[in-house]
């Protein structure tokens, strides 16, 4: 293992985070606060409780997931796309580093950053609504797994994309809709039964449901299934990354 290389990539990527502090940390805080003002106050005042949880508190896990997913994907995809775009990738390709070390550096940094953002959002949410974490370990599990998995997904997107448009395509056309339709702001039990079945094809449902369970002990789907699905997504994303490097796709010509 070339630990110095992993550290170098990781440090470089984190430096980018501090440099773009406003965008990477302040922006999520502001958007979360806006969600609370709009959803929590305006809509929440009309919806009392879901599953016995005040609406404002109910949406916290979903809101967190929304940020974790978009942040992980954005950070990781940009982290690898930009060197490709600017040409500085030559250095990584000519260095004595394995693909695993490259992934650990880039995805590790993206994961850390998302975790950081997650914690900040959680703290921000705590200012607006009462919070409770019933199963802290499970909460941590979902939090970390989601960050890693979607950072991997972002990494895949960053390698696949050869222009800025493609970079935005999957996050805005696929991921964001899936999060909104995945029960971030409602319980899927509130849907007509047909749509409840359709929703189960949305992978994000399992993440949000499990995550919400770790906060309030209530879930749309069995938490065991959520855990299994979370692990499955991680394996899937890792497998795709492994395949990409096996075939040299898009990095080495």
């Amino acid at each position, binding site marked *: 293992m*070339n630990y*110095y*290389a992993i*550290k*170098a*990539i990781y*440090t*470089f990527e984190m*430096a*980018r985070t501090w*440099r773009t502090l406003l965008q990477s940390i302040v922006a999520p805080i502001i958007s979360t606060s806006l969600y609370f003002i709009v959803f929590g106050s305006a809509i929440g005042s009309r919806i009392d409780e879901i599953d016995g949880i005040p609406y404002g508190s109910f949406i916290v896990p979903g809101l967190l997931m929304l940020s974790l997913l978009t942040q992980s994907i954005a950070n990781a995809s940009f982290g690898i796309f930009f060197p490709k775009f*600017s*040409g*500085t990738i*030559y*250095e*990584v*390709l*000519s*260095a*004595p*580093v*394995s693909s695993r070390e490259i992934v650990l550096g880039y995805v590790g940094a993206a994961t850390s950053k998302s975790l950081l953002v997650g914690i900040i959002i959680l703290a921000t949410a705590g200012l607006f609504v009462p919070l409770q974490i019933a199963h802290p370990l499970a909460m941590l599990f979902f939090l970390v797994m989601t960050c890693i998995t979607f950072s991997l997904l972002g990494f895949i997107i960053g390698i696949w994309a050869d222009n800025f448009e493609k970079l935005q395509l999957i996050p805005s056309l696929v991921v964001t809709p899936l999060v909104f339709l995945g029960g971030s702001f409602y319980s899927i039990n509130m849907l007509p039964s047909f749509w409840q079945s359709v929703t189960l094809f949305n992978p994000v449902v399992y993440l949000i449901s499990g995550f919400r369970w770790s906060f309030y002990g209530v879930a749309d789907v069995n938490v065991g299934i959520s855990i299994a699905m979370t692990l499955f997504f991680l394996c899937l994303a890792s497998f795709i990354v492994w395949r990409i490097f096996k075939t*040299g796709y898009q990095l*080495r*010509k």
Partner: protein
Amino acid sequence: MPPVVSISNLNKIYDSGFQALSNINLDINRGEIIALLGPNGAGKTTLISIICGIVNASSGAIIVDGFDTQTEYRKTRGKIGLVPQELTSDAFSTVWNTVTFSRGLFGKEPNPSVIEKILRDLSLWDKKDNMMMTLSGGMKRRVLIAKALSHEPEILFLDEPTAGVDVELRKDMWRVINRLRDSGVTIILTTHYIEEAEEIADRIGIISNGEIILVEEKDILIKQLGKKCITLKLQNKLDAIPEDLNQYELELSQDGRELSYTFNTTTTITPSVNNNDPSSNIATLIDKLSSNNIHFNDIDTKQSSLEEIFVELVANSKTNSNYMSKHQKKTLQEQQ
């Protein structure tokens, strides 16, 4: 001594189907400076990129210091430093950070004193806290060199190190390159400036259309292929070259005012060669001119530079793919 880099039967066909390299065989000696010359698109960057691991070869093998670049890439890449052709850098990093990053990336333990020495050697020390985007092009090029040296490589690839660099800085760069060679680093550089190859290289390789058409010691190349041209400014206009001068390959300018004589330096400068061949003797030519009543009031002489040799070779290789100079054959024989 075994070559430090040994390339055999290397081919590269890009995904587009374009064959950028055809059957490259090349040995690079330890401690030498070898310059790769070739027109745009010849395949210089492709060749370097494959050795450094940025581009995958289609077939062939490369051995660096005894290790295969495919199977033992950690060992080979650790020994190599690369300064790319394009000036790419992370705009927001400081000089110090970007060089430190490179050292880490190549798996070396942090060592600020090594980095300080590199920056000082490249006159970058006072810029160490500057952001990359605030540097001029020439300075950026130096930083790229510093990055390539950060892990103390044994072999350094410089892809057009002096492109777009002013004369002053270019000379400076040559000094840097010479110093590196003195410290034992093997240097492979590509350039479009023939005088650069003439100035600093020990050996010269010429690439055209993805093939190496010649590899030769610089001195031998210039001597063997060098031509000299004497141009006489005639006092009186000449209509035609007199017949008894036909044995000399003379050329008369259109206005009949200039007569030029081109000859191979190896046959004329060295007296032992073709000593008794009157065609190679300038003195007899001049005698003959005056006996023909041709007088001149000025002489201009020109030694053909590597540039002309180069242009000629590349032109030949394009018009005739079977073209092979005797020097090339010799080089090949030596290699076998």
